[in-house]
């Protein structure tokens, strides 16, 4: 596959994942306001934002844990507003959660296989298992170990491997640097870049703006539920306002 950088101005129907004028409410509170997003094949894009800016809600809406009050969530050309998470996972989107969240009492192998829960193609699954083993040879050594006993770095690999097992078209990454040691953050970003180089489209929600923009192609900035900036990573890094407000750390919710 090719790693092609799409321009943000295009309204290419080939978008893998798209938000069209999405609004969401949490009770009476208006969270996302007319949000437009699009992710194209092979891209690595990031969503930046401060506290309570709606980053987590965006992910939940993408995955169908929150239903938008208006607007459309489009997955691979199909409007999936009312489809459950499982449908969306089956159709090519999945997430690596913040803090890894492995099933600690299950073995590594079982964790990986749960990633392929919705699939029934035995050959395909085996193929993907091999692919994950190739990507992370250390995971292969620990297959029968309980996931909770792995080191932080290994857990991160299993978490990514588990997500890959559903054979996604887009991989969502929730705060891949949150609460991690510097070396692990770095490993994480290397892994993300590596998978992206293999052709996987990645959508990353991150507070560490500097780090995220250093590997991303494009980025959006959310402020209280509205997209206030939408540009290439390079341009965002050069943006002075952004420099002032967000770069150099950022904040979680």
């Amino acid at each position: 596959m090719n790693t092609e950088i799409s321009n943000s101005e295009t309204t290419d129907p080939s978008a893998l994942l798209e938000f069209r004028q999405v609004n969401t409410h949490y009770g009476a509170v208006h969270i996302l306001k007319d949000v437009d997003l699009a992710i194209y094949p092979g891209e690595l894009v990031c969503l930046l934002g401060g506290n309570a800016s709606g980053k987590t809600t965006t992910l939940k809406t993408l995955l169908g844990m929150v239903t938008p009050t208006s607007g459309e969530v489009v997955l691979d050309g199909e409007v999936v507003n009312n489809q459950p998470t499982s449908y969306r996972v089956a159709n090519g989107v999945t997430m690596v959660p913040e803090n890894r969240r492995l099933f600690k009492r299950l073995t590594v192998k079982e964790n990986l296989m749960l990633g392929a829960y919705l699939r029934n193609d035995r050959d395909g699954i085996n193929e993907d298992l091999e692919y994950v083993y190739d990507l992370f040879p250390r995971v292969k050594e620990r297959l029968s170990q309980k996931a909770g006993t792995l080191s932080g770095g290994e857990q991160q690999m299993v978490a990514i491997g588990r997500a890959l097992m559903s054979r996604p078209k887009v991989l969502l990454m929730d705060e891949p640097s949150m609460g991690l040691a510097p070396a692990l953050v770095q490993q994480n970003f290397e892994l993300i870049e590596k998978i992206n180089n293999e052709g996987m489209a990645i959508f990353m929600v991150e507070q560490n703006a500097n780090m995220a923009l250093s590997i991303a192609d494009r980025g959006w900035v959310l402020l209280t539920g509205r997209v206030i900036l939408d540009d290439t990573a390079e341009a965002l890094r050069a943006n002075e306002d952004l420099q002032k407000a967000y770069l150099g750390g950022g904040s979680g919710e």
Partner: protein
Amino acid sequence: MSHLLEIQNLQVTFGGLDALSGLNFHVDEGEIVSVIGPNGAGKTTFFNTITGLVEPTGGDILFQGDSVLGLEPNEVTSLGIARTFQNVRLFPNMTILENVMVAQHCRTSQNVFGALFQTKAFKKEEQEIRQRAEEILGFFGSRLVGYRLDQAAFMLSYANRRRLEIARAMATQPRLMLLDEPVAGMNPSETAELTELIGRLRSEWGFTIVIIEHDMAVVKNVSDRVVVLDHGVPIASGSYEEVSTDPDVIEAYLGRPVESHS
């Protein structure tokens, strides 16, 4: 003179896995020590063991020269060790004032009798508890006082929750304060402010402080000494400058500088 806190050959095992294996560590009165290390290196277990939440399998913990092993967490706290939690654990439905008042439990003594008969001593103590709570909350500027005093803790923003947690730890009137990732999830300006506050905790309130932190800026700014843990043992110790250039630490924890990467 003996150390304020001294840990000798501390071992903790969970289901056959060593969380801490032979840890030696000490803090002197008035120091600020940072503990850093990779995820899963046993840092939080280290705090949990000191505060009595986890029973060690070996070794000893001496506070002011006496062992605290086998004490219940509340007894450890009443000896003068207070802590905060990595994932902010306030009493969410109690008001901000109550959160700080309740933490003075081990420094107060009135019981059922006083409450039922509203004795003078009871009323006096209640008054003192309240005053002290307001004084402590005042330390954080205007954020946690005024109408907020009677607001439930769950209404607070993330950063203010972290501040309240420190206030609550202060209310137990400790000599040693253990802060577990106090700036995690804060934005840069909040981080900078809290870093300064940590310094004032020592200079104005006289606490000795141990911090677990991933944010190297904070570690660099506040600590007299940095201890790096990996797999339950210290791999380096010294000033920030010494530790941050130690090849073992770079290998295990810091990784290559980020800038070289992009």
